[in-house]
């Protein structure tokens, strides 16, 4: 119906707003950001000069950077794995003909819209050392003898964040996997049953392999989104104690808007971009090619 030649004006009208926004506010900032990583740019300085790989050299020699990178991968990795395991089980469970399964799904999915700032203060309350729900419940059943300093001990604080990230990822992953499960053709499962497969065999040999790609894609999407998420550590632990919950996004944000060191923040961002490109290339080579 349309041709690029005859409907130029329509095409232009449809694409112009988005093109402008993307060009000015995404492509330019990224290009400029990468450029800034080779300068000593800062809003506190009127001019900036080119410094080559100085920022990169500084960052690679900085223990904090490596600690933050390690934290981020640890937190997001465990949160994603945990969320995936729970979501698969939940999706398989709710995919049975259970009464109220629609209601359960809605209730769980409803938690997905609770704002991050609310989660941050809620988590602060739940993991509160003296009056928190977690310590209270553990003590009630005699599982702990003294209160645990959840948010003031590096390892525990990381796990509090991991639990929160996982909890937050579950609704979305579960819903995607339920949709994928519903897309598994009934005939295939009937065929497996006729061939004599038991429930577990059907699940592990037929159902799960069939939804594997969608689930993996959803998990990766969720993981990269978590990379951007910094409200929780920012408000709940302020990255502490001792940078234990400092994640890459928050680290870079603090460098930019707390220390006003745009150059170093841009360097962190550029390295993040490099990781993203590598990650994307691997993803395209493995997951997409199989689809």
């Amino acid at each position: 119906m349309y041709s690029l030649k005859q409907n130029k004006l329509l095409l232009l009208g449809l694409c112009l707003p988005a093109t402008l926004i993307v060009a000015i506010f995404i492509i330019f900032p990224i290009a400029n950001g990468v450029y800034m990583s080779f300068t000593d740019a800062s809003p506190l300085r009127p001019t900036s000069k080119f410094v080559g790989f100085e920022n990169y050299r500084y960052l690679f020699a900085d223990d904090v950077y490596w600690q933050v990178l390690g934290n981020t991968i640890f937190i997001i990795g465990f949160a994603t794995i945990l969320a995936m395991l729970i979501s698969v089980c939940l999706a398989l469970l709710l995919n049975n003909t259970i009464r109220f399964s629609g209601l359960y799904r809605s209730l769980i999915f409803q938690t997905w819209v609770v704002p991050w700032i609310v989660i941050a203060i809620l988590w602060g309350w739940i993991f509160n050392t003296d009056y928190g729900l977690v310590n209270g419940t553990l003590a009630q059943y005699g599982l702990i003898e003294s209160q645990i300093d959840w948010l003031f001990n590096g390892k525990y604080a990381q796990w509090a964040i991991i639990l929160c990230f996982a909890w937050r990822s579950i609704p979305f992953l579960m819903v995607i996997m339920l949709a994928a499960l519903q897309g598994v053709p009934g005939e295939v499962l009937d065929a497996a049953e006729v061939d004599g497969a038991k429930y577990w065999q059907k699940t592990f040999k037929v159902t799960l392999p069939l939804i594997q790609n969608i689930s993996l894609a959803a998990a990766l999407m969720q993981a990269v989104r978590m990379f951007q998420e910094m409200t929780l550590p920012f408000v709940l632990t302020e990255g502490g104690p001792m940078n234990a919950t400092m994640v890459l996004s928050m680290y870079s944000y603090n460098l930019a808007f707390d220390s006003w060191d745009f150059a170093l923040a841009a360097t962190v961002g550029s390295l993040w971009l490099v990781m993203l490109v590598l990650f994307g290339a691997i993803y395209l080579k493995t997951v997409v090619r199989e689809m």
Partner: protein
Amino acid sequence: MKFSFSKLVRGYIIPYGLQASALASTAILISPIVWMVSTSLKKESEVFDRPPVWIPSEISFDSYFRIMNSFVANILYNSILVALLAAIIATVIGAMTAYALSRFAIPGKSTIMLFFLSSLAFPIPLLMMSMYILLMKMGLLDTLLSMIIGHTVITLPITVWLMKNFIDQIPKEIEEAAYVEGASFLRIIFFIVFPLSMPALTASALFVFVTSWNELFFGLSFISSPDLRTVPVGISQSFLQEFKTDWTGMMSLAVIVTIPIGIIFVFLQKSFLRGMIAGSVKG
């Protein structure tokens, strides 16, 4: 009747077992929210009780009245304004672009779509720095518009992605039929394609709204006037300091700022899921 063990398992143990596990997992997953609401309704005296009390012995709305002031009204107003405008702008612009990407033989289409998808993972602080400089030069720092722009920018790629995948599934013939009947392109887009894309439009608008409602850092760095703060900024910048140990008050505020988005979501969840799944499962 003969007793049969396998009948017992199939008829009772499995169905009830499944029901019980579904109920238990749902309960555990929503328990933080329940705890939030429960705390907000407690009397100050009951908050610190050990072991934890789930159902308040006496429902009290005191804390709601205590924290409900002009500051809270103001941050709610700002958030609604920013989220609503960002949702409308990002969705309309995204849908227009998505339509063009779906129906025109634009060269490099798959690369463009890949770029949009990967923007999900872009380092936001990297974007924010240059945006900060640009907005400063435009004189837009410390305005709600700067936040609307920021939220539109970070969500636009997703709306394009969602909408394109959805529009791809609308048969072209419907539009051709309208075209043969004499409908103009604009009429086809606004009276045929957009109404048919309602689930995807809802999904993307809601996605933008939720993202905007959640977003703390644009507000934190672009806004300096206290009366322009949105919900997350207001809470993190003033409320947390002021109400540090007032847990019922904090939980009441948490409930209050969750309610607007929660109610929208209750009504639009189905539509949202339909649009989201149709738009994302393909990719």
